[in-house]
């Protein structure tokens, strides 16, 4: 897998074009009730949002904020108590919409007594695929998620990361136009996380729409075009990641090979023009970058201790 990460600056083609809207929620609400019909939790309140064709849409929020409820409502696993949700213009309870959807649940809820090939074959059958198509897709997906060597092992023997991969493969078995990924990087090691993020980006390049729900803010920042932030069942923020994260009154300069004099001169220019220098320092890399560098180097020169130590 390639390890290039890039923000996709391309906005959805047209915001107002209804054919571009994959998911639309209108005043969506969900109240959980107990057996006697008494209100237990108001999990989601009046949610209005759209997921547009070809974008990676992030759903963010702390535990209990209503993310999973929103996804379950979109998939028809729950029924709304208020408002409506449409997927590809159809009610979320319409089974036929599932032909075009792929879903990776929070934990890969798969049958542990099946092996990877049987799992993919089973889900392929659920899409009414012919044996030939199932074989071809199974082969392709097992290669893609890197489970060639574990293809005949029962899923009960899989590590968490492997389970995640086979979960993703089953979500892709029907080559879906819309992919719902609930915490896709949970349980993955940094390499797996990076590969997953690359894959998500690649899928977008193939024209798929992705709804991603995650606690890992870095993941969301890395891959999402737009995000919605939920808290206590309410939509708190909705917009493009780049514009949401942009700190308008701070300017960032990255330069290399500057002498101490040059640095002082830059500091002087900032002060003369009325600005305040907040920080001038050698940057640190992220832990993720550091880890990946070490692994990469170790793979190239096995047995040697990394140069960063």
């Amino acid at each position, binding site marked *: 897998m390639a390890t290039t990460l890039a923000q996709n600056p391309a906005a959805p083609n047209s915001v107002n074009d209804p054919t571009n809207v994959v998911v639309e929620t209108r005043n969506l609400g969900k109240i*959980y009730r107990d057996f006697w*019909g008494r209100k237990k939790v108001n999990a989601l309140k009046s949610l209005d949002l759209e997921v547009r064709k070809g974008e990676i849409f992030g759903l963010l929020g702390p535990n209990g904020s209503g993310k999973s409820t929103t996804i*379950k409502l979109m*998939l*028809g*696993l*729950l*029924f709304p108590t208020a408002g409506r949700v449409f997927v590809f213009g159809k009610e979320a309870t319409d*089974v*036929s919409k*599932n*032909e075009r*959807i792929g*879903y990776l*649940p929070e*934990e890969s*809820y*798969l*049958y542990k*007594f*099946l092996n990877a090939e049987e799992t993919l074959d*089973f*889900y392929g*059958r*659920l*899409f*009414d*695929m012919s044996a030939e198509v199932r074989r071809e897709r199974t082969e392709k997906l097992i290669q893609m998620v890197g489970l060639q060597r574990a293809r005949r092992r029962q899923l009960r023997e899989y590590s968490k990361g492997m389970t995640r991969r086979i979960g993703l493969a*089953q979500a892709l078995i*029907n080559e879906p136009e819309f992919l719902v990924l609930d915490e896709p990087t949970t349980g993955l090691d940094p390499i797996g996380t990076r590969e997953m993020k690359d894959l998500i980006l690649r899928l977008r390049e193939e024209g798929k729409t992705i709804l991603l729900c995650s606690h890992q803010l870095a993941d969301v920042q890395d891959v999402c075009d737009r995000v919605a932030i939920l808290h206590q069942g309410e939509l708190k923020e909705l917009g493009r990641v780049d514009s949401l994260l942009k700190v308008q009154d701070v300017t960032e300069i990255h330069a290399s090979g500057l002498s101490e004099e040059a640095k002082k001169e830059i500091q002087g220019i900032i002060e003369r023009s009325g600005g305040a220098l907040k920080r001038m320092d050698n940057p640190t890399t992220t832990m993720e970058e550091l880890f990946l560098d070490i692994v990469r180097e170790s793979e190239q020169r096995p047995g040697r201790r990394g140069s960063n130590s």
Partner: protein
Amino acid sequence: MRLSPEQFWTYSEWLFQKNGLRDGFFLALVLAILGFVIGYIVAVIKHGPSEGFLQVARIIGQLFTVDIPKMSFRRIFAMAKLAIKESIRKKVLVVVGIFIVGMMFAGWYLDENADYPARLYISFVLTMTNYMVIVLGLFVSCFSIPADIKSRTIYTIVTKPVRPLELFLGRVLGFTAIGTLVLVAMGLLSYVFVVRGLRHTHETVSTSAEGTTGETSYANRHKHTYTLNESGRGTTNEVKGHRHIVEKVGDKIIVKKPIDDLTARVPVYAKSLAFTGRDGETNTGYNVGYMSEYQKYIEGDTLSSAVWRFEGVSPSLFKDVISYDMTISAFRTYKGDIVTPVGGIIYFRSIDGTAQTEPEAFKVKEFQVDRRTIKTKVKGSKDKKGSKDKQPAEIDFFKDIAPNGSFDVVIRCQDRGQYLGMAAADVYLRPNDLQFWWNFVKGYISIWLQMFIVICFGVMFSTFLSGPVAIIATISAIVLGFFGFFIDQIQSTNTKGGGPLESLIRIPLQSGSQLELDLGNEALQTAITKIDEQLLRAVVQLKNAVPNFDQLGTADFVAYGFNLFGGLLGRHLTIAFGYFILTSLVSYFFLKTREMAA
């Protein structure tokens, strides 16, 4: 084994003449209305009257417009295959092992002194298989969907284009397949167990001087006597429900394997049984009290008789001899000579009474089948032309007595003060027997149908209940079926105080149940009675919605050596199909309206 008349209705008789089809439709209608009303009430609580109605209408509409037409067999088979794998993973096949162990120990407990060891062996294996397979069906079917919901694997299923009916059908098909596998294994083992368990032979220990009669050795706790004909062939007497063929080969007399113990008699039953009283007038037979409610009685040494009317008996069924079986019982009003059985006479008569065979005396063989024959060319009497006087004559059975296959069989009791008891199924003609193994298979098909019904109910309940509760609900449905006769009693007997509506009106009026209800308005009272009739009918139909395993059991047919005839199996098949449709629809509505992630 006692058969009630409805047990030998043919399939078409049951379906059309005995209202099987009409009652089925009525039941479907009652359930549909009930289902709609309950569904609507729930929808109204959730969504309000108009939106609730729309919701219910949409679900019903989608069933016919989308969910049935777009069903995919590939998806159903995929889920069936998954259910099979799941069952195998749960080590369901261990049941076969337990069955083998059960059979190994059975040999210790099956009574070797039994009068009919074949019955005992066959009853044992069929009953054991029946219970084990039903329990198996119960457990696999009730826990599957709840387990999927608990482990949330259902999320990955219902987010695929899987329709509710496919979810139900896949499970039912899968569990039925695994149950069938277990049943086939049990069937083969049982067959071997029965055949090997009963197989035995004897040596000859004593032979008469002329060499035509003798006695066999003591084996399997019994011995026989035998008689040989001139050509050196013959049979032993019947002991413990079987005989042996005996053959003289050279100087040696060889006793072969048992016969008659594993049979499949194909009884030809009478269409009706009528009685005449002691004065010769038609009556319904005498009731001797709680001795027997199944059989009615005729009085000895009077004009009292029992007349079975056979119709449409084909001459092709019998060559020179007509075989028939009798299971008549006796009721003694005085002890008398207790060793000598009560006697009777039997004769065959044409329907118009113009010809009859010579009466043949018999002694009642109580609690066993009396195997009898009559030649097709036999002595009897015929009316003289133009008069009612009977003249002794040679009778050709199918020419004089049953020219169109219809005739009467008449039985009278000869002993004064004693009674003979009989029911419609107690005299039947017995053309050639069928193969036992095929009857055995049919017995297993019957068990299979019961298992199938249990699986349908189990999966249905598991679509809206948790596993253990679904088990209790399914068991309750099975047990309730056994108490159906209470409801039948309520409808058939004239209940005091009227039906449900009338009783309800009587409570505030404080009207005693012994009095006629007086509302001062005849039209209103008639309306109440009519409504009550329909309500009671609906209750009876609802009772029929619960499977009656007592009636579905056919082990006795196989054990007692009766051919499990197609009509009965066809009826059971139809009933099972009815339950399949019922449980499919109920499951559809529950799966369609259930929040899988709730």
